[in-house]
């Protein structure tokens, strides 16, 4: 029982991070039909910014907030400079563009912060655990789940009740109509990228915590969040959050229960397992759990 709870807690923590990353993808995709392959690099920038800000003696919460705002601004700048001119160009071109934006960000991170790995500062002891239902659960995990939950709740509240949230929903449903209604679509794009950058940074903070560390390979973890996006449905925030949490749990459970069963094939099997799930979902239900069916018109 204790083992299972421990696994569930780390699975939930991983799932919360996946959900944050996946939400970033979906926000951008809904607003501008761009799938941002650089999301992982935003996450990495956020994690490194937090480390740097916290090392200046800033309180932890303020450092995280500063990193979120900084990454959000970076994302908005990327949108304005590189992606705005691509409006109306084929999907193919924007996908390739974001991949290479990610490459450049990775190089910049390596130039600024070097390639050595470092620990993510935490307000509590990095390896602290607390007793929960007879299991020792890392405080980091609880922090990830808590912060993830708050961030997701904030997202849905913003989307539903604020002016900018309504404008975002309008833009994602019809750009031309919203432009005609006086919504500044360009600025809404910027705002969505800002939001996505903020969520990426928050995900990066909790991803970089113990047992992992902050290094330039952190961005590749976002590749593992892709299945969550696809399984959840590309245009459904709720769907990807559910799928993210489920896949995080599945990955941790697969690591402890399926890997040992498979012998040498099982080594690192948990890393490809989400992709296998994703391919199965795509074959059976291409739009994902909650995505809307794509209608094609000539």
């Amino acid at each position: 029982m204790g083992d299972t709870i421990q696994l569930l807690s780390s699975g939930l923590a991983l799932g919360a991070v996946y959900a944050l990353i996946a939400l970033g993808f979906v926000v951008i995709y809904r607003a501008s039909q761009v799938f941002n392959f650089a999301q992982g690099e935003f996450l990495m920038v956020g994690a490194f910014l937090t480390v740097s800000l916290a090392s200046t003696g800033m309180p932890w919460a303020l450092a995280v907030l500063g990193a979120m705002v900084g990454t959000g601004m970076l994302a908005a700048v990327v949108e304005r400079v590189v992606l705005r001119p691509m409006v109306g160009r084929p999907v193919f071109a924007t996908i390739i563009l974001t991949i290479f934006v990610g490459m450049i960000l990775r190089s910049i991170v390596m130039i600024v912060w070097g390639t050595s790995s470092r620990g993510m500062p935490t307000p509590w002891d990095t390896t602290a655990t607390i007793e929960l239902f007879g299991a020792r659960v890392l405080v980091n995990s609880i922090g990830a789940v808590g912060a993830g939950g708050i961030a997701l709740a904030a997202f849905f509240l913003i989307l539903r009740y604020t002016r900018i949230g309504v404008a975002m929903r309008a833009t994602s449903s019809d750009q031309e109509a919203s432009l005609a209604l006086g919504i500044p679509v360009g600025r809404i794009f910027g705002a969505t990228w800002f939001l996505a950058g903020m969520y990426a940074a928050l995900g990066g903070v909790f991803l970089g915590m113990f047992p992992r560390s902050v290094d330039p390979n952190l961005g590749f973890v976002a590749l593992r969040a892709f299945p969550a996006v696809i399984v959840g449905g590309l245009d459904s925030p709720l769907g990807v959050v559910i799928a993210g949490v489920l896949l995080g749990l599945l990955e941790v459970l697969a690591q402890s229960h399926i890997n040992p069963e498979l012998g040498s094939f099982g080594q690192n099997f948990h890393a490809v397992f989400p992709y296998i799930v994703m391919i199965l979902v795509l074959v059976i239900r291409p739009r994902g759990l909650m995505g809307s069916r794509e209608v094609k018109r000539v």
Partner: protein
Amino acid sequence: MPTRALVTRYEQDLALFPDFWQRLGLALGIAFLLAFPLTANAYWLNIGTLTLVTVVGSISLMILTGFTGQISLGHAAFLALGAYTAAILGSRWGLPFWLLLPAGGLVAAAVGLMVGPFALRLEGLYLAIVTLGLLFLVNHVLLSFPEVTRGVSGISVPMHAWFADAGADVSFRKPLVVGRYTLAFEQKIFLLYAVVVAVVVWLANNLRRSNAGRAMMAVRDHDMAASVMGVNVSATKIIAFGVSSFFAGVAGAMYAFQQQYITVDPPFNLTMSVQYIAMIVLGGVGTLTGAVIGALAFTVLSPIAEMVGHQIPWVQNLTSAQQSTLLFSLLVIGFLLYEPMGLYGIWLRVKRYFMAWPFRY
């Protein structure tokens, strides 16, 4: 303004080298390919051979992405399959290289045909992610059967000129002595690969201008319109996957023979897939010339990026591979924003300027 002389007969339309300038270019190209291995030093000869391998790889991605419009982030997986087929069959059964080059292609094509059906249900973005998953899966499988693939430690690739169980030493790596002249292995493999590249370019060019190739471009430009006009979209996509992964497998086998010792990751990772995408964007998406120019630019610019990168104060902290990645990322973004047709687009503009000279049309 037509980009080539007006054609009035089918023979002219079918001719591969219709006018004087193209025949001149062909002659110069052949002369260069023959002279290069005899004059270049070991460093540039190595880069030259790698360029030929890369040309085959980028042509194969061009067929899938450039002609058919299907984005693949898993191109490295097909190269890995070709490379490992060549390595395993060559070391286990001593098969000769001229059998292993197509064999690597066939194995990759078999996997490509299995992925093809996914492409029928998935559009650009989804396909990119599924092919990325395919890359992870292939690498995982290659690493998890160490008794066959030797796992993370890598596998050496013998290159037999004839069936090895005949007893005699039939390695292709021995220098070839003709009278007073000696051809070293590096020179032999360059000439061999030049022939392979010529064959692949010829095949791909015929594909491009035949029924199948035109169907691919119709699917790329508008799949629904294409299907209304009678193009079998499903068959076209699957054919594109098969042909593309076949050539990618051949490129992988060529790479394995050239490297002599291969491991799974690096080189067969996401970076490789992305590099191939960079090449076709750089060269010009949708054109065969673009695939060749892109691959040439990529392999020639990499050493130059290294040289320049070491002079720039901030950039010199990066490894040389990272420096060239940075340069190519900037180039690709620049091209996507300002010259979507790539280097081929620039070349077309230069050519048109001179064809219309002294008038500015």
